[in-house]
Protein backbone atom coordinates (compact mmCIF):
# COMPACT_ATOMS: atom_id res chain seq x y z
CA UNK A 1 0.00 0.00 0.00
CA UNK A 2 2.75 2.43 1.08
CA UNK A 3 4.83 1.38 -1.91
CA UNK A 4 1.91 2.01 -4.18
CA UNK A 5 1.38 5.54 -2.87
CA UNK A 6 5.12 6.26 -3.00
CA UNK A 7 5.41 5.02 -6.53
CA UNK A 8 2.34 7.06 -7.45
CA UNK A 9 3.94 10.19 -6.04
CA UNK A 10 7.31 9.58 -7.62
CA UNK A 11 5.77 8.50 -10.90
CA UNK A 12 6.60 10.77 -13.77
CA UNK A 13 4.57 13.93 -14.06
CA UNK A 14 3.19 14.21 -17.51
CA UNK A 15 4.12 17.77 -18.34
CA UNK A 16 2.24 19.02 -21.34
CA UNK A 17 4.08 20.33 -24.33
CA UNK A 18 4.51 24.03 -23.91
CA UNK A 19 3.58 25.75 -27.10
CA UNK A 20 1.98 29.01 -28.06
CA UNK A 21 -1.51 27.55 -27.65
CA UNK A 22 -0.83 26.44 -24.08
CA UNK A 23 0.69 29.79 -23.15
CA UNK A 24 -2.34 31.56 -24.56
CA UNK A 25 -4.57 29.20 -22.61
CA UNK A 26 -2.72 29.97 -19.35
CA UNK A 27 -2.79 33.69 -20.01
CA UNK A 28 -6.51 33.43 -20.76
CA UNK A 29 -7.13 31.71 -17.41
CA UNK A 30 -5.33 34.46 -15.51
CA UNK A 31 -6.97 37.25 -17.49
CA UNK A 32 -10.46 35.77 -17.26
CA UNK A 33 -10.08 35.19 -13.50
CA UNK A 34 -8.89 38.76 -13.03
CA UNK A 35 -11.61 40.25 -15.21
CA UNK A 36 -14.29 38.11 -13.59
CA UNK A 37 -13.30 39.14 -10.05
CA UNK A 38 -13.03 42.79 -11.07
CA UNK A 39 -16.37 42.72 -12.86
CA UNK A 40 -18.20 40.90 -10.07
CA UNK A 41 -16.65 43.17 -7.43
CA UNK A 42 -17.75 46.21 -9.43
CA UNK A 43 -21.29 44.91 -9.95
CA UNK A 44 -21.72 43.91 -6.31
CA UNK A 45 -20.24 47.21 -5.08
CA UNK A 46 -22.62 49.18 -7.31
CA UNK A 47 -25.54 47.02 -6.26
CA UNK A 48 -24.64 47.38 -2.59
CA UNK A 49 -24.87 51.19 -2.89
CA UNK A 50 -28.51 50.80 -3.95
CA UNK A 51 -29.29 48.19 -1.32
CA UNK A 52 -29.81 50.73 1.49
CA UNK A 53 -29.62 49.04 4.86
CA UNK A 54 -28.49 45.77 3.23
CA UNK A 55 -25.32 47.36 1.86
CA UNK A 56 -23.03 45.41 4.18
CA UNK A 57 -24.77 42.11 3.41
CA UNK A 58 -24.10 42.47 -0.30
CA UNK A 59 -20.44 43.41 0.12
CA UNK A 60 -19.95 40.31 2.28
CA UNK A 61 -20.00 38.19 -0.88
CA UNK A 62 -17.19 40.04 -2.66
CA UNK A 63 -14.19 38.40 -0.92
CA UNK A 64 -15.93 35.00 -0.94
CA UNK A 65 -16.42 35.20 -4.71
CA UNK A 66 -12.83 36.30 -5.20
CA UNK A 67 -11.37 33.39 -3.28
CA UNK A 68 -13.64 30.96 -5.13
CA UNK A 69 -12.69 32.30 -8.57
CA UNK A 70 -8.96 32.36 -7.82
CA UNK A 71 -9.04 28.81 -6.42
CA UNK A 72 -10.77 27.53 -9.56
CA UNK A 73 -8.32 29.51 -11.71
CA UNK A 74 -5.33 28.02 -9.86
CA UNK A 75 -6.69 24.52 -10.32
CA UNK A 76 -7.27 25.13 -14.05
CA UNK A 77 -3.82 26.64 -14.37
CA UNK A 78 -2.06 23.63 -12.80
CA UNK A 79 -4.08 21.02 -14.67
CA UNK A 80 -3.49 22.88 -17.93
CA UNK A 81 0.26 22.72 -17.40
CA UNK A 82 0.64 19.20 -16.05
CA UNK A 83 -1.59 16.18 -15.67
CA UNK A 84 -0.98 15.11 -12.10
CA UNK A 85 -2.75 12.24 -10.35
CA UNK A 86 -4.68 13.16 -7.22
CA UNK A 87 -1.84 11.87 -5.03
CA UNK A 88 0.70 13.85 -6.98
CA UNK A 89 -1.45 16.95 -6.71
CA UNK A 90 -1.63 16.56 -2.93
CA UNK A 91 2.08 15.87 -2.64
CA UNK A 92 2.85 18.79 -4.91
CA UNK A 93 0.66 21.10 -2.89
CA UNK A 94 2.41 20.01 0.31
CA UNK A 95 5.90 20.43 -1.12
CA UNK A 96 5.01 23.69 -2.80
CA UNK A 97 3.56 24.96 0.46
CA UNK A 98 6.65 23.98 2.45
CA UNK A 99 9.21 25.35 0.01
CA UNK A 100 7.43 28.56 -0.82
CA UNK A 101 6.20 28.95 2.72
CA UNK A 102 9.76 29.11 4.05
CA UNK A 103 10.88 31.50 1.35
CA UNK A 104 7.80 33.66 1.34
CA UNK A 105 6.77 33.35 4.97
CA UNK A 106 5.28 36.83 5.19
CA UNK A 107 3.38 36.49 1.96
CA UNK A 108 1.83 33.21 3.09
CA UNK A 109 1.14 34.62 6.50
CA UNK A 110 -0.79 37.41 4.73
CA UNK A 111 -2.66 34.87 2.61
CA UNK A 112 -3.56 32.87 5.73
CA UNK A 113 -4.74 36.12 7.33
CA UNK A 114 -6.85 36.85 4.24
CA UNK A 115 -8.50 33.43 4.45
CA UNK A 116 -9.18 33.89 8.18
CA UNK A 117 -10.71 37.33 7.52
CA UNK A 118 -12.92 35.89 4.78
CA UNK A 119 -14.06 32.87 6.78
CA UNK A 120 -14.19 34.23 10.33
CA UNK A 121 -15.35 37.71 9.30
CA UNK A 122 -13.91 39.85 12.13
CA UNK A 123 -14.91 42.67 9.77
CA UNK A 124 -16.18 42.99 6.24
CA UNK A 125 -16.13 45.39 3.33
CA UNK A 126 -17.82 48.63 4.37
CA UNK A 127 -16.96 48.34 8.07
CA UNK A 128 -15.11 51.07 9.94
CA UNK A 129 -12.09 49.40 11.52
CA UNK A 130 -8.89 50.14 13.35
CA UNK A 131 -6.31 47.75 11.91
CA UNK A 132 -2.74 48.21 12.96
CA UNK A 133 -2.12 51.92 13.12
CA UNK A 134 -4.86 52.77 10.67
CA UNK A 135 -8.51 53.69 11.04
CA UNK A 136 -10.98 53.90 8.19
CA UNK A 137 -13.55 52.20 6.02
CA UNK A 138 -12.70 48.78 4.59
CA UNK A 139 -12.89 49.20 0.82
CA UNK A 140 -11.59 45.80 -0.26
CA UNK A 141 -10.43 42.55 1.27
CA UNK A 142 -7.79 40.93 -0.90
CA UNK A 143 -5.95 37.70 -0.31
CA UNK A 144 -2.75 39.49 0.76
CA UNK A 145 -3.94 42.79 2.15
CA UNK A 146 -6.96 44.75 3.26
CA UNK A 147 -7.54 48.18 1.75
CA UNK A 148 -8.69 50.85 4.15
CA UNK A 149 -9.79 54.34 3.22
CA UNK A 150 -8.71 56.68 5.99
CA UNK A 151 -10.59 59.84 7.00
CA UNK A 152 -7.88 61.77 5.10
CA UNK A 153 -9.02 59.89 1.97
CA UNK A 154 -5.81 57.87 1.74
CA UNK A 155 -6.11 54.30 0.52
CA UNK A 156 -3.93 52.19 2.81
CA UNK A 157 -3.09 48.52 2.17
CA UNK A 158 -2.71 46.80 5.52
CA UNK A 159 -1.15 43.30 5.41
CA UNK A 160 -3.68 40.67 6.44
CA UNK A 161 -1.30 39.05 8.94
CA UNK A 162 -1.96 42.10 11.14
CA UNK A 163 -4.97 40.25 12.52
CA UNK A 164 -2.57 37.65 14.04
CA UNK A 165 -0.28 40.16 15.67
CA UNK A 166 -2.50 43.10 16.68
CA UNK A 167 -6.05 43.60 17.82
CA UNK A 168 -8.52 44.64 15.16
CA UNK A 169 -11.41 46.84 16.16
CA UNK A 170 -14.62 47.06 14.08
CA UNK A 171 -16.75 50.06 14.95
CA UNK A 172 -19.99 48.71 13.51
CA UNK A 173 -19.60 44.91 13.22
CA UNK A 174 -21.33 44.55 9.87
CA UNK A 175 -24.09 47.07 10.58
CA UNK A 176 -24.49 50.18 8.49
CA UNK A 177 -25.20 52.29 11.61
CA UNK A 178 -22.39 53.04 14.03
CA UNK A 179 -22.15 54.44 17.53
CA UNK A 180 -20.42 57.79 17.77
CA UNK A 181 -19.12 59.36 20.97
CA UNK A 182 -19.18 63.15 21.12
CA UNK A 183 -17.39 64.90 23.98
CA UNK A 184 -17.85 68.53 24.86
CA UNK A 185 -16.09 70.23 27.75
CA UNK A 186 -17.48 73.07 29.80
CA UNK A 187 -16.27 75.19 32.65
CA UNK A 188 -16.86 73.57 36.05
CA UNK A 189 -18.91 76.56 37.20
CA UNK A 190 -21.37 76.36 34.28
CA UNK A 191 -24.72 74.60 34.48
CA UNK A 192 -23.82 71.02 33.48
CA UNK A 193 -27.43 69.80 33.53
CA UNK A 194 -28.47 72.51 31.08
CA UNK A 195 -25.44 71.73 28.90
CA UNK A 196 -26.43 68.05 28.92
CA UNK A 197 -29.98 68.99 27.86
CA UNK A 198 -28.63 71.07 24.98
CA UNK A 199 -26.28 68.31 23.83
CA UNK A 200 -29.09 65.77 24.06
CA UNK A 201 -31.36 67.91 21.89
CA UNK A 202 -28.54 68.59 19.44
CA UNK A 203 -28.05 64.83 19.16
CA UNK A 204 -31.67 63.73 18.78
CA UNK A 205 -32.50 66.46 16.27
CA UNK A 206 -29.46 65.80 14.11
CA UNK A 207 -30.16 64.94 10.49
CA UNK A 208 -27.68 62.08 10.73
CA UNK A 209 -29.00 60.30 13.82
CA UNK A 210 -30.95 57.06 14.12
CA UNK A 211 -32.72 56.27 17.39
CA UNK A 212 -34.64 53.14 18.30
CA UNK A 213 -34.50 50.32 20.85
CA UNK A 214 -31.68 48.82 18.81
CA UNK A 215 -29.92 52.17 18.53
CA UNK A 216 -30.31 53.98 21.85
CA UNK A 217 -28.59 57.17 22.89
CA UNK A 218 -27.08 58.28 26.20
CA UNK A 219 -25.90 61.55 27.70
CA UNK A 220 -23.28 61.38 30.45
CA UNK A 221 -21.76 64.04 32.68
CA UNK A 222 -18.41 63.59 34.38
CA UNK A 223 -16.63 66.11 36.54
CA UNK A 224 -12.87 66.65 36.33
CA UNK A 225 -10.71 69.05 38.37
CA UNK A 226 -10.70 71.85 35.80
CA UNK A 227 -13.67 71.12 33.64
CA UNK A 228 -16.84 69.08 33.23
CA UNK A 229 -17.18 66.65 30.38
CA UNK A 230 -20.58 66.23 28.73
CA UNK A 231 -20.59 63.12 26.58
CA UNK A 232 -23.20 62.06 24.05
CA UNK A 233 -23.35 58.55 22.66
CA UNK A 234 -25.62 57.99 19.69
CA UNK A 235 -25.79 56.19 16.37
CA UNK A 236 -25.24 57.69 12.95
CA UNK A 237 -27.54 56.00 10.41
CA UNK A 238 -24.73 55.52 7.90
CA UNK A 239 -21.18 55.05 9.13
CA UNK A 240 -19.85 57.01 6.16
CA UNK A 241 -21.34 60.12 7.76
CA UNK A 242 -19.47 59.65 11.03
CA UNK A 243 -17.54 62.91 10.91
CA UNK A 244 -20.40 64.98 9.51
CA UNK A 245 -22.58 63.74 12.39
CA UNK A 246 -19.97 64.60 15.01
CA UNK A 247 -19.34 67.98 13.48
CA UNK A 248 -23.01 68.92 13.09
CA UNK A 249 -23.93 67.99 16.67
CA UNK A 250 -20.86 69.74 18.09
CA UNK A 251 -21.42 72.89 16.04
CA UNK A 252 -25.07 73.24 17.01
CA UNK A 253 -24.47 72.40 20.67
CA UNK A 254 -21.59 74.90 20.98
CA UNK A 255 -23.68 77.64 19.38
CA UNK A 256 -26.44 76.95 21.89
CA UNK A 257 -23.93 76.88 24.78
CA UNK A 258 -22.88 80.35 23.75
CA UNK A 259 -26.49 81.58 23.64
CA UNK A 260 -27.16 80.02 27.06
CA UNK A 261 -24.00 81.51 28.59
CA UNK A 262 -22.40 78.13 29.22
CA UNK A 263 -18.67 78.76 29.34
CA UNK A 264 -15.97 76.59 27.85
CA UNK A 265 -13.19 75.54 30.28
CA UNK A 266 -10.22 77.81 30.85
CA UNK A 267 -7.90 74.87 31.20
CA UNK A 268 -8.58 72.68 28.24
CA UNK A 269 -8.48 68.91 28.72
CA UNK A 270 -5.38 67.15 27.49
CA UNK A 271 -5.08 63.76 25.95
CA UNK A 272 -5.63 61.99 29.28
CA UNK A 273 -9.00 63.61 29.69
CA UNK A 274 -10.04 62.64 26.21
CA UNK A 275 -9.07 59.02 26.64
CA UNK A 276 -10.68 58.42 30.02
Amino acid at each position, binding site marked *: MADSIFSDVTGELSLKTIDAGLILHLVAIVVVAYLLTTLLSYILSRFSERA*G*VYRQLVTLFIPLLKIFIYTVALYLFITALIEPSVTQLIAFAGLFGAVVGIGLKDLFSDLAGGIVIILEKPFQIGDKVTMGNYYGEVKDIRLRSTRIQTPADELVSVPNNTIFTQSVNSGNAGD*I*AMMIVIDLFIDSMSDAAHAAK*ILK*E*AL*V*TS*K*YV*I*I*SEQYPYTILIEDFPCYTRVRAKGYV*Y*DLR*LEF*EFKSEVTR*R*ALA*EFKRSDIKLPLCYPGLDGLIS
Partner: protein
Amino acid sequence: MGEESNVIGYEREIEAISRAIEQFDPSNPRHVAIIGEPMAGKTTVAGEIMRRYGDCIHSVTLGGVMTQDAMPAFSSIQKDCILVDNCEFFATRQIGGFKFLDDFLKCQFYSTKLFITAWNSYAWRYLSAVRNIGTYYPLVVTLPAMDSSTLKQVILSNYPQREIRFVENPPSEPASICTMVQRQARLPFSGREVSIPWFHLNTNAIRSRLQVGRKTVVSPEDAVFEKIRRVARGNPGVAMQIFSGCLEDNVVSFEKIPEDECELSLDITESFVLTLIVSMKSLQYHDLSAIAGGGEVLDRALFSLRRQGLILEDDGVYRISPARLNCIGNYLKKTRRVW
Protein backbone atom coordinates in the same frame (compact mmCIF):
# COMPACT_ATOMS: atom_id res chain seq x y z
CA MET B 1 -73.06 47.60 18.70
CA GLY B 2 -72.18 51.30 18.43
CA GLU B 3 -73.75 54.12 16.46
CA GLU B 4 -73.67 53.81 12.67
CA SER B 5 -70.54 55.46 11.31
CA ASN B 6 -70.47 58.00 8.51
CA VAL B 7 -66.85 57.14 7.84
CA ILE B 8 -66.13 54.21 5.57
CA GLY B 9 -63.26 51.90 6.44
CA TYR B 10 -62.41 53.06 9.95
CA GLU B 11 -65.49 51.76 11.80
CA ARG B 12 -63.46 49.66 14.25
CA GLU B 13 -61.12 52.53 15.10
CA ILE B 14 -64.02 54.92 15.66
CA GLU B 15 -65.72 52.36 17.91
CA ALA B 16 -62.51 52.03 19.99
CA ILE B 17 -62.33 55.81 20.46
CA SER B 18 -66.04 56.00 21.24
CA ARG B 19 -65.64 53.34 23.94
CA ALA B 20 -62.78 55.35 25.49
CA ILE B 21 -65.02 58.45 25.61
CA GLU B 22 -67.99 56.56 27.05
CA GLN B 23 -65.85 54.87 29.72
CA PHE B 24 -64.06 58.12 30.60
CA ASP B 25 -63.12 58.33 34.28
CA PRO B 26 -61.79 61.77 35.40
CA SER B 27 -59.69 60.13 38.12
CA ASN B 28 -57.86 58.05 35.50
CA PRO B 29 -58.25 59.51 32.01
CA ARG B 30 -57.05 57.09 29.33
CA HIS B 31 -55.77 59.53 26.73
CA VAL B 32 -56.10 58.51 23.09
CA ALA B 33 -53.60 58.87 20.24
CA ILE B 34 -54.87 58.49 16.67
CA ILE B 35 -51.93 57.71 14.39
CA GLY B 36 -52.00 57.85 10.61
CA GLU B 37 -49.92 58.64 7.57
CA PRO B 38 -50.40 62.06 5.96
CA MET B 39 -53.82 62.09 4.23
CA ALA B 40 -54.83 58.78 5.85
CA GLY B 41 -57.99 60.33 7.30
CA LYS B 42 -57.15 61.38 10.87
CA THR B 43 -59.13 64.60 10.51
CA THR B 44 -62.08 62.66 9.06
CA VAL B 45 -62.04 60.31 12.06
CA ALA B 46 -61.75 63.30 14.41
CA GLY B 47 -64.71 64.91 12.58
CA GLU B 48 -66.81 61.78 13.10
CA ILE B 49 -65.95 61.78 16.81
CA MET B 50 -67.03 65.43 17.00
CA ARG B 51 -70.27 64.61 15.20
CA ARG B 52 -71.06 61.93 17.77
CA TYR B 53 -69.86 63.60 20.97
CA GLY B 54 -69.68 67.28 20.00
CA ASP B 55 -71.49 68.44 23.14
CA CYS B 56 -68.85 67.05 25.48
CA ILE B 57 -65.73 67.58 23.34
CA HIS B 58 -63.76 70.76 22.78
CA SER B 59 -61.90 70.59 19.47
CA VAL B 60 -58.55 72.24 18.75
CA THR B 61 -56.89 72.04 15.34
CA LEU B 62 -53.28 73.14 15.09
CA GLY B 63 -52.68 74.99 11.83
CA GLY B 64 -48.90 75.28 11.90
CA VAL B 65 -45.75 75.02 13.97
CA MET B 66 -46.57 75.97 17.56
CA THR B 67 -45.58 79.35 18.97
CA GLN B 68 -45.94 80.82 22.44
CA ASP B 69 -48.87 83.00 21.34
CA ALA B 70 -50.71 80.15 19.61
CA MET B 71 -50.40 77.65 22.48
CA PRO B 72 -53.97 76.77 23.52
CA ALA B 73 -54.91 77.28 27.18
CA PHE B 74 -56.04 73.70 27.84
CA SER B 75 -56.56 74.27 31.57
CA SER B 76 -59.33 76.79 30.90
CA ILE B 77 -61.41 74.43 28.74
CA GLN B 78 -64.64 73.44 30.46
CA LYS B 79 -65.66 70.35 28.53
CA ASP B 80 -64.68 66.85 29.67
CA CYS B 81 -62.83 65.86 26.52
CA ILE B 82 -60.34 67.77 24.41
CA LEU B 83 -59.69 66.71 20.83
CA VAL B 84 -56.42 68.01 19.39
CA ASP B 85 -55.72 67.49 15.69
CA ASN B 86 -52.27 67.80 14.02
CA CYS B 87 -50.34 67.30 17.26
CA GLU B 88 -47.09 66.91 15.31
CA PHE B 89 -46.98 70.72 15.25
CA PHE B 90 -46.16 70.77 18.99
CA ALA B 91 -42.57 69.75 18.30
CA THR B 92 -39.92 70.76 15.80
CA ARG B 93 -36.65 69.01 15.09
CA GLN B 94 -34.28 71.62 16.53
CA ILE B 95 -32.63 72.47 19.83
CA GLY B 96 -35.40 73.83 22.05
CA GLY B 97 -38.03 72.47 19.67
CA PHE B 98 -39.65 70.18 22.25
CA LYS B 99 -40.72 72.89 24.71
CA PHE B 100 -44.37 73.05 23.65
CA LEU B 101 -44.61 69.27 23.37
CA ASP B 102 -43.27 68.90 26.90
CA ASP B 103 -45.81 71.48 28.13
CA PHE B 104 -48.61 69.67 26.29
CA LEU B 105 -47.63 66.27 27.69
CA LYS B 106 -47.27 67.73 31.19
CA CYS B 107 -50.72 69.26 30.86
CA GLN B 108 -52.17 65.84 30.00
CA PHE B 109 -50.28 64.19 32.84
CA TYR B 110 -51.94 66.40 35.46
CA SER B 111 -55.31 66.82 33.72
CA THR B 112 -58.58 65.20 34.74
CA LYS B 113 -59.88 65.61 31.20
CA LEU B 114 -59.67 63.10 28.38
CA PHE B 115 -57.33 64.10 25.56
CA ILE B 116 -57.97 62.66 22.11
CA THR B 117 -54.99 63.50 19.96
CA ALA B 118 -54.23 62.93 16.28
CA TRP B 119 -50.63 62.48 15.11
CA ASN B 120 -48.81 62.10 11.83
CA SER B 121 -47.31 58.57 11.94
CA TYR B 122 -43.81 59.71 10.93
CA ALA B 123 -43.74 62.38 13.64
CA TRP B 124 -45.20 59.90 16.13
CA ARG B 125 -42.44 57.35 15.53
CA TYR B 126 -39.76 60.03 15.81
CA LEU B 127 -41.21 61.49 19.02
CA SER B 128 -41.75 58.01 20.48
CA ALA B 129 -38.05 57.30 19.95
CA VAL B 130 -36.71 60.60 21.31
CA ARG B 131 -39.41 61.61 23.82
CA ASN B 132 -41.14 58.30 24.57
CA ILE B 133 -44.55 59.92 24.06
CA GLY B 134 -46.25 56.53 23.71
CA THR B 135 -46.28 56.17 27.50
CA TYR B 136 -48.74 59.09 27.81
CA TYR B 137 -51.36 57.33 25.70
CA PRO B 138 -52.90 54.11 27.02
CA LEU B 139 -54.99 53.84 23.85
CA VAL B 140 -53.16 54.13 20.53
CA VAL B 141 -55.40 53.82 17.48
CA THR B 142 -53.49 53.32 14.25
CA LEU B 143 -55.38 53.92 11.03
CA PRO B 144 -54.69 50.88 8.84
CA ALA B 145 -54.12 50.77 5.10
CA MET B 146 -57.38 50.07 3.23
CA ASP B 147 -57.99 47.22 0.81
CA SER B 148 -59.16 47.92 -2.73
CA SER B 149 -62.86 47.25 -2.11
CA THR B 150 -62.94 49.66 0.86
CA LEU B 151 -61.05 52.26 -1.14
CA LYS B 152 -63.60 51.83 -3.91
CA GLN B 153 -66.44 52.57 -1.49
CA VAL B 154 -64.59 55.57 -0.04
CA ILE B 155 -63.79 57.05 -3.44
CA LEU B 156 -67.16 56.42 -5.09
CA SER B 157 -68.99 57.90 -2.07
CA ASN B 158 -67.53 61.23 -3.19
CA TYR B 159 -69.25 60.97 -6.57
CA PRO B 160 -72.83 60.05 -5.64
CA GLN B 161 -74.46 61.93 -8.49
CA ARG B 162 -72.15 60.82 -11.25
CA GLU B 163 -72.09 57.60 -13.16
CA ILE B 164 -68.44 56.79 -13.64
CA ARG B 165 -67.40 54.51 -16.46
CA PHE B 166 -64.33 52.31 -16.26
CA VAL B 167 -62.80 51.50 -19.60
CA GLU B 168 -60.68 48.55 -20.47
CA ASN B 169 -57.69 49.52 -22.52
CA PRO B 170 -56.91 47.56 -25.67
CA PRO B 171 -54.43 44.80 -24.92
CA SER B 172 -50.99 46.10 -25.62
CA GLU B 173 -47.83 44.32 -26.63
CA PRO B 174 -46.05 42.98 -23.56
CA ALA B 175 -43.13 45.17 -22.56
CA SER B 176 -39.64 43.76 -23.08
CA ILE B 177 -37.89 42.39 -20.04
CA CYS B 178 -34.54 43.72 -21.16
CA THR B 179 -33.86 46.72 -23.35
CA MET B 180 -30.67 48.14 -24.74
CA VAL B 181 -29.89 51.69 -23.65
CA GLN B 182 -26.94 53.98 -24.19
CA ARG B 183 -25.00 55.04 -21.12
CA GLN B 184 -22.30 57.61 -20.78
CA ALA B 185 -19.00 56.36 -19.43
CA ARG B 186 -15.73 58.14 -18.82
CA LEU B 187 -12.68 56.50 -20.35
CA PRO B 188 -9.72 55.96 -18.05
CA PHE B 189 -6.59 58.08 -18.61
CA SER B 190 -8.08 60.24 -21.37
CA GLY B 191 -11.11 61.26 -19.33
CA ARG B 192 -13.15 61.31 -22.53
CA GLU B 193 -16.86 60.51 -22.26
CA VAL B 194 -18.20 57.84 -24.58
CA SER B 195 -21.60 56.32 -25.10
CA ILE B 196 -21.68 52.57 -24.54
CA PRO B 197 -24.56 50.12 -25.03
CA TRP B 198 -25.96 48.88 -21.72
CA PHE B 199 -28.70 46.48 -20.71
CA HIS B 200 -31.61 47.82 -18.72
CA LEU B 201 -33.80 45.34 -16.84
CA ASN B 202 -37.47 46.26 -16.78
CA THR B 203 -38.58 45.12 -13.33
CA ASN B 204 -42.24 45.93 -13.97
CA ALA B 205 -42.30 43.70 -17.05
CA ILE B 206 -40.62 40.87 -15.13
CA ARG B 207 -43.16 41.21 -12.33
CA SER B 208 -46.10 41.14 -14.73
CA ARG B 209 -44.69 38.11 -16.57
CA LEU B 210 -44.27 36.28 -13.28
CA GLN B 211 -47.91 36.94 -12.50
CA VAL B 212 -49.16 35.54 -15.80
CA GLY B 213 -49.75 32.06 -14.34
CA ARG B 214 -52.00 33.28 -11.59
CA LYS B 215 -53.84 35.91 -13.56
CA THR B 216 -57.57 35.90 -13.02
CA VAL B 217 -60.22 37.74 -14.96
CA VAL B 218 -61.10 40.98 -13.19
CA SER B 219 -63.44 43.71 -14.23
CA PRO B 220 -61.89 47.01 -15.41
CA GLU B 221 -63.40 48.67 -12.33
CA ASP B 222 -61.71 46.25 -9.92
CA ALA B 223 -58.45 46.48 -11.84
CA VAL B 224 -58.55 50.27 -11.55
CA PHE B 225 -59.11 50.23 -7.79
CA GLU B 226 -56.51 47.52 -7.23
CA LYS B 227 -53.95 49.61 -9.07
CA ILE B 228 -54.95 52.72 -7.12
CA ARG B 229 -54.59 50.74 -3.87
CA ARG B 230 -51.14 49.58 -4.89
CA VAL B 231 -49.93 53.04 -5.89
CA ALA B 232 -51.51 54.73 -2.85
CA ARG B 233 -50.47 51.88 -0.50
CA GLY B 234 -54.02 51.81 0.87
CA ASN B 235 -54.00 55.47 1.90
CA PRO B 236 -57.51 56.84 1.20
CA GLY B 237 -56.49 60.50 0.86
CA VAL B 238 -53.79 59.65 -1.64
CA ALA B 239 -56.13 57.25 -3.47
CA MET B 240 -58.77 59.97 -3.84
CA GLN B 241 -56.20 62.40 -5.23
CA ILE B 242 -55.01 59.83 -7.77
CA PHE B 243 -58.57 58.97 -8.77
CA SER B 244 -59.63 62.57 -9.26
CA GLY B 245 -56.44 63.20 -11.21
CA CYS B 246 -57.25 60.55 -13.80
CA LEU B 247 -61.00 61.15 -14.05
CA GLU B 248 -61.88 62.69 -17.39
CA ASP B 249 -65.49 63.24 -18.50
CA ASN B 250 -66.66 60.66 -15.97
CA VAL B 251 -64.33 58.08 -17.48
CA VAL B 252 -61.41 56.40 -15.73
CA SER B 253 -59.04 54.15 -17.61
CA PHE B 254 -56.51 51.79 -16.12
CA GLU B 255 -53.66 53.22 -18.16
CA LYS B 256 -54.31 56.76 -16.93
CA ILE B 257 -53.39 55.83 -13.36
CA PRO B 258 -49.73 56.79 -13.01
CA GLU B 259 -47.32 54.11 -11.84
CA ASP B 260 -45.29 55.22 -8.85
CA GLU B 261 -41.88 55.01 -10.49
CA CYS B 262 -39.58 55.24 -7.51
CA GLU B 263 -35.98 55.88 -8.44
CA LEU B 264 -34.90 58.50 -5.94
CA SER B 265 -31.40 59.61 -5.17
CA LEU B 266 -31.36 62.51 -2.75
CA ASP B 267 -28.54 64.21 -0.91
CA ILE B 268 -28.55 64.59 2.86
CA THR B 269 -30.19 68.02 3.00
CA GLU B 270 -32.88 67.02 0.49
CA SER B 271 -33.64 63.87 2.48
CA PHE B 272 -33.76 65.81 5.73
CA VAL B 273 -36.07 68.48 4.31
CA LEU B 274 -38.29 65.76 2.87
CA THR B 275 -38.36 64.01 6.25
CA LEU B 276 -39.42 67.26 7.92
CA ILE B 277 -42.20 67.89 5.42
CA VAL B 278 -43.53 64.32 5.46
CA SER B 279 -43.52 64.39 9.27
CA MET B 280 -45.72 67.49 9.31
CA LYS B 281 -48.82 68.08 7.28
CA SER B 282 -47.25 71.11 5.70
CA LEU B 283 -44.43 73.46 6.60
CA GLN B 284 -43.90 77.12 5.92
CA TYR B 285 -40.60 78.29 4.48
CA HIS B 286 -39.59 80.17 7.63
CA ASP B 287 -40.22 77.09 9.79
CA LEU B 288 -38.14 74.94 7.46
CA SER B 289 -35.47 77.60 7.51
CA ALA B 290 -35.41 77.62 11.32
CA ILE B 291 -35.12 73.84 11.54
CA ALA B 292 -32.92 72.92 8.59
CA GLY B 293 -30.93 76.12 8.42
CA GLY B 294 -31.91 78.59 5.77
CA GLY B 295 -30.05 80.06 2.87
CA GLU B 296 -28.85 78.72 -0.40
CA VAL B 297 -28.59 75.09 0.73
CA LEU B 298 -32.25 74.96 1.75
CA ASP B 299 -33.38 76.79 -1.39
CA ARG B 300 -31.45 74.37 -3.58
CA ALA B 301 -32.92 71.37 -1.75
CA LEU B 302 -36.47 72.72 -2.07
CA PHE B 303 -35.94 73.44 -5.75
CA SER B 304 -34.62 69.93 -6.36
CA LEU B 305 -37.50 68.31 -4.47
CA ARG B 306 -40.04 70.35 -6.41
CA ARG B 307 -38.34 69.58 -9.71
CA GLN B 308 -38.60 65.86 -8.93
CA GLY B 309 -42.28 66.27 -8.16
CA LEU B 310 -41.88 65.17 -4.54
CA ILE B 311 -43.21 68.31 -2.89
CA LEU B 312 -45.70 71.01 -3.82
CA GLU B 313 -45.42 74.67 -2.93
CA ASP B 314 -48.36 76.94 -2.38
CA ASP B 315 -47.70 80.51 -1.28
CA GLY B 316 -44.63 79.63 0.78
CA VAL B 317 -46.16 76.49 2.27
CA TYR B 318 -44.58 73.18 1.34
CA ARG B 319 -46.34 69.82 1.40
CA ILE B 320 -45.80 66.34 0.06
CA SER B 321 -47.07 65.50 -3.41
CA PRO B 322 -49.80 62.94 -2.62
CA ALA B 323 -49.04 60.67 -5.58
CA ARG B 324 -45.40 60.33 -4.44
CA LEU B 325 -46.10 59.63 -0.76
CA ASN B 326 -45.63 55.88 -1.14
CA CYS B 327 -42.34 56.31 -2.94
CA ILE B 328 -41.10 58.91 -0.43
CA GLY B 329 -42.04 56.72 2.54
CA ASN B 330 -40.24 53.71 1.07
CA TYR B 331 -37.14 55.72 0.22
CA LEU B 332 -36.87 57.37 3.63
CA LYS B 333 -37.34 54.04 5.40
CA LYS B 334 -34.85 52.26 3.17
CA THR B 335 -32.23 54.93 3.81
CA ARG B 336 -33.10 55.09 7.53
CA ARG B 337 -34.09 58.73 7.51
CA VAL B 338 -37.32 57.76 9.22
CA TRP B 339 -37.42 54.95 11.75
